[in-house]
């Protein structure tokens, strides 16, 4: 019989190779997209932005170049779209006269906001999962609560955040609560779908083992929900960052990205590149967070699929 054994499909090394390769590709893709966006951005300014001039020396050569765009578009002027190099330079220039570079300042703020977002994400993910488990076990609870859960998400967070801030006293906790509020919903929806995703015959199999509802939850429904759960956790990770930033605004917390956004909003006319730099910082926080969730996913689902590329 052993001679007739068909060979196992693939070998142990291939999944790892797939992951490394796709990781490198992903970084290359990110860089490529950045370059494309920067080129489009500067291309728009080239055609319809404000006139600009480079005057100085590069590698000992005197450079004096002036460009007059053929059109004038408001959307491409220096106020709406500051030059890419101005945004990059904004990271290096000090935030205040004689202070630390804006980039360093933003890193500190990003870490602070990230911590709030992570707390909100943790609570939100837990709440979302618990709600889904409740709904999957009780049709009545599902019918009674789901409309409210949906309604809760239809209310703009801006309307609710002051209420939460007043109720929980402005501070770290209120931010985490607002972040939780934005986080739990996608997790509930994703987990609800995932908890019902297992093969119907697998449920029969567990029935044939006379397995308890708890056994079915732990050994069938939760593991089967993992792909759905992680898809919604990625959405939730990005939403938790937004929740944290929005939560900082009415709380008056000065240490996060929220106050930087507020601040550079006010000085937009004089220094638009600082707001743009802050926007970049916000999206990087979200990107890092979603990336962490991805890493967690690939650890949890190691060996489970043919490839580790999960859309």
């Amino acid at each position: 019989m052993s001679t007739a054994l068909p060979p196992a499909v693939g070998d142990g090394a291939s999944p790892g190779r797939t992951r490394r390769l796709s990781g490198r590709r992903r970084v290359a893709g990110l860089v490529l997209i950045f370059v494309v966006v920067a080129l489009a951005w500067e291309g728009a300014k080239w055609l319809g932005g404000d006139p600009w001039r480079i005057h100085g020396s590069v590698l000992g050569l005197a450079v004096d170049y002036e460009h007059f765009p053929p059109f004038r578009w408001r959307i491409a002027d220096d106020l709406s779209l500051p030059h890419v190099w101005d945004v990059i330079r904004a990271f290096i220039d000090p935030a205040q006269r004689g202070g630390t570079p804006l980039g360093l300042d933003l890193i500190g703020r990003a870490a602070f906001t990230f911590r709030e977002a992570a707390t909100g994400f943790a609570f939100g993910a837990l709440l979302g999962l618990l709600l889904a488990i409740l709904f999957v076990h009780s049709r009545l609870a599902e019918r009674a609560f789901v409309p409210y859960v949906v309604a809760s998400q239809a209310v703009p967070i801006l309307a609710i955040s002051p209420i939460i801030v007043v109720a929980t006293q402005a501070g770290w906790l209120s931010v985490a609560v607002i972040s939780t509020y934005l986080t739990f919903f996608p997790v509930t929806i994703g987990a609800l779908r995932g908890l019902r995703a297992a093969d119907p015959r697998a449920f029969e199999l567990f029935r044939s083992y006379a397995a308890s509802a708890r056994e079915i939850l732990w050994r069938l429904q939760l593991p089967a929900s993992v792909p759905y759960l992680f898809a919604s956790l990625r959405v939730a990770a990005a939403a938790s960052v937004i929740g944290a930033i929005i939560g900082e605004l009415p709380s008056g917390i000065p240490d996060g990205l929220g106050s930087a956004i507020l601040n550079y909003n006010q000085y937009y006319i004089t220094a638009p590149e600082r707001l743009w730099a802050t926007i970049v910082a916000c999206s990087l926080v979200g990107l890092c967070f979603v990336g962490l969730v991805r890493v967690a996913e690939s650890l949890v689902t190691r060996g489970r699929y043919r490839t580790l590329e999960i859309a």
Partner: protein
Amino acid sequence: MTDLQPRSASPAAASRAVVEAAGVTKIFGSGDAAVAALETIDLSIREGEFVSLIGPSGCGKSTLLRLIGDLTAPSAGDVRVNGKPARQARLDRDYGMVFQAPVLMDWRSVARNIELPLEIMGFSREERTRRSAELLRLVELEGFEARHPWQLSGGMQQRVAIARALAFDPKLLLMDEPFGALDEMTRERMNLELMKIWGRTGTTIVFVTHSIPEAVFLSTRVAVMSARPGRITKIVDVDLAQPRTVDTREDRRYFELVTEVRETLRRHEPQGAIEEVEADRIRAEGLG
């Protein structure tokens, strides 16, 4: 697995009924839409037997198997397993189940898939490891314990499913077209494998199949069923020598029995759409 010794053929043990169905009727739907999937089925299966249920689509053979496993309840009649009501037998974990698809948990390695029922039933870690190693040997999958299901071929996955069903040493194995999705060559090899396993464990097996040669090759008795309503039209005793080997398929008696089963099936062929009943069953049960 405590009994991997050659099966004992003690007459006392052989006479004990493992499955008893009396007047079992199963109706899906109600009113005008009601379909009798099974009508007054009487069937008794003794310990150590290998009984195949064969018939056209919609004859209710899968439904009968699911009734024995208490995965669905009869509309009328009584199903007893090991002398107990089917429900009690299920709660006592008296049987193992194998479906047409392997239904392996893709997040578990091969060994952990086999150990799944043992975990649910509260076996100790050492016992689980011991049994899964033993079963991997039984289904000849040693060395694959750390693989995940996607790394195995269809036949290997089905062997894992069989090992999983045997893991807690049930005295009854219910198999619902377990080799139906496999190619002919793999199927024939799996039939031989199953005969070896049956010979070594002495488990009573109820086996649903579409394949006449498969039913004759494996069984001690073949229950031939007809559709609309689902009935057992004839039970064919398969008096081929044990153990069944590759040579069994060359036996003249084997061909005679295949012909007998085929003609019984043909005689009771219903006129017209037999698929309809099956489609109704699937709809009524919400199966995919």
